[in-house]
């Protein structure tokens, strides 16, 4: 009898024990580790972590911040779903209602808007941090790829969300953004028609984007984020090292509770406070209601696509929208599978010469990107210099080949004049391209005004 009903008088305790199996409060390290293993949420963490890996100025808490932002986005997003109808007739009116009628409507919309944008920034910074500390090297190759896919999903979530307010900004940014698809050979027009639900951005597009934004993308992200964090646990954290410091033989390990969890919670609270202050202060933009008959001048894509839109002003669209971004993505996904000739895991920028090479890359990009943009804008006109060739060659293959040649010369010069290792040269090249993209984005956002002409920032506004 006793095995069937061990404690006949203690029903409340048995109910609690059936939910929470470990005895609280946690008395010793063993029970703290067991708690992590038995807890559904905490078990994506290891039971113990290496103490050096907890150094805040190593990770900057960027992965954790991304998770916090995703949580804010889920909560505020679900709230917004209750007051928003995705039809051209009511979407914009719902935005106005959020601003005027619904209590805390602006706050929730602002939180959602800014968290979404900040998530994109955070994800990119997280990726840069992992890259510059060598955290993508074996055995963590696949987690880098997962992170890359997650980054694309974050871009997708931001882009689909951009349409939902159904204002002029939304309508034309999405028109411009989806028109890029038309340039993909063979499949492009069909894919564009499918996701737009017709030939142009319309009510059908709003329905499609809403479904993608509130269901398909978040669900996919949920599984991939879980996978990503679980892989971090399986692959273990990289350990920060100083320049020329050898890999440690033995590492002190501490229990995840309280050492990691307390840092995470405090950091989350501080960031949450900052984001709420920001969202209370600065309103998410909202322009007039969408008008399919009238494109605003200039019609700009969302800021995270402005680097691409800037490329489009200089290259044939197939190259600006498809070939160059495609090459960049393939390059990023291939990075962890290349051969490594420097032991640099955990060292910021690999080594002393790695730091120098990276700085050279950044400086080169800061100088040459604006120069090339200005040259192409005012001096060189390839299609009229090569009138016999179709523009896909004169404004596509020719400038791309020129740029690739310059990059090749740059890489070889680093390798054989400055005598840096292949890893360090690749890092320098990565820095050059990343800074170039950042410069293009800044040019597109700040220096492009009416008719997408170059002008000073104060003339743009």
């Amino acid at each position, binding site marked *: 009898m006793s095995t069937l009903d061990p404690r006949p008088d203690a029903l409340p305790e048995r109910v609690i024990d059936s939910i929470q199996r470990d005895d609280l409060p946690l008395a010793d390290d063993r029970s703290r580790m067991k708690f992590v293993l038995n807890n559904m949420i905490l078990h994506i963490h290891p039971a113990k972590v290496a103490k050096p890996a907890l150094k805040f100025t190593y990770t900057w808490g960027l992965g954790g911040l991304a998770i916090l932002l995703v949580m804010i986005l889920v909560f505020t997003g679900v709230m917004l779903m209750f007051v928003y109808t995705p039809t051209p007739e009511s979407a914009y009116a719902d935005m106005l209602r959020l601003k005027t009628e619904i209590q805390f409507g602006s706050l929730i919309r602002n939180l959602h808007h800014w968290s979404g944008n900040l998530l994109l920034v955070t994800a990119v910074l997280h990726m840069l941090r992992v890259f510059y500390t060598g955290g993508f090297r074996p055995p963590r190759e696949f987690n880098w790829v997962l992170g890359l896919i997650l980054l694309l999903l974050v871009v997708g979530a931001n882009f689909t969300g951009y349409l939902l307010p159904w204002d002029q900004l939304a309508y*034309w940014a999405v*028109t*411009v953004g*989806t*028109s*890029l698809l*038309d340039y993909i050979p063979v499949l492009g027009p069909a894919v564009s*028609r*499918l996701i*737009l*639900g*017709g*030939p*142009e951005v319309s009510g*059908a597009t709003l329905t*499609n984007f809403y479904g993608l934004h509130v269901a398909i993308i978040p669900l996919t992200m949920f599984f991939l984020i879980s996978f990503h964090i679980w892989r971090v646990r399986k692959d273990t954290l990289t350990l920060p090292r100083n320049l020329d410091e050898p890999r440690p033989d033995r590492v002190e390990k501490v229990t995840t509770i309280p050492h990691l969890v307390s840092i995470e919670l405090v950091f989350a609270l501080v960031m949450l406070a900052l984001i709420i202050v920001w969202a209370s202060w600065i309103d998410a933009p909202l322009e007039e209601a969408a008008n*399919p*008959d*009238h*494109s*605003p*001048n*200039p*019609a700009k894509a969302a800021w995270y696509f402005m680097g691409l839109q800037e490329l*489009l*002003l200089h290259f*044939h*669209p197939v190259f600006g929208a498809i070939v160059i971004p495609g090459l960049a993505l393939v390059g990023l996904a291939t990075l962890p599978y290349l051969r490594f000739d420097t032991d640099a895991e955990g060292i910021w920028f690999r080594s002393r010469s790695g730091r120098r090479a990276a700085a050279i890359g950044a400086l080169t990009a800061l100088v040459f990107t604006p120069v090339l943009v200005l040259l192409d804008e005012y001096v060189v006109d390839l*299609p009229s210099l090569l009138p016999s060739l179709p*523009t*896909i060659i004169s404004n596509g293959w020719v400038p791309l080949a020129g740029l690739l040649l310059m990059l090749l010369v740059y890489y070889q010069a680093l390798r054989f004049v400055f005598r840096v290792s292949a890893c360090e040269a690749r890092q320098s090249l990565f820095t050059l391209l990343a800074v170039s993209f950042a410069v293009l984005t800044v040019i597109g956002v700040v220096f492009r005004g009416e*008719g*997408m*002409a170059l002008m000073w920032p104060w003339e743009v506004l």
Partner: protein
Amino acid sequence: MAEQHTDNKHDDNTHDQTTRRDFLKLAWGAAGLLVLGEGALVAYKFFAPKVVAGEFGGVFTIGLLDDFPPGSVTPVTAGRFYLVRLADGGLLALYRKCTHLGCAVPWDQAEGKFICPCHASAFEPDGDVLNPPAPRPLDRFAITVVDGEINVDTGTAIQRDHANQSDIVYPSAEVSS
């Protein structure tokens, strides 16, 4: 049973014989692929865009030939196109969507050309590119003239690499045919 045991080791000796086990594996695999394929087809058909009759995508009857004097460009907002009557009397229906990145291209009467506000592409009245980045002339819709009445089919935007004389519809020829 004994036979099944030897089947398990078929890799070692026989290669030219398909065992019952192999066949079943293949059949289950094929069934799985079939389900995936069917699912993809159903999903594609389910999500495929639908054209509503009488809206953009259908045929527009926009009036009599005489309503559009030679040398005029008239926007038909609901159909998202311009009816262009060239100076020589020829007709063209031009889709207003810029061939560069899809902005709505307005007609500039003073300049006598279409100028896109987004990236400054410019087009001739017949749709030909005056100024890049637009990669090709404005798309056109098919025009039929029946008893002097102009019909424009917005179902398919016809893409073209260059503006051709053959794109232009001359009403007299249309009536006689």
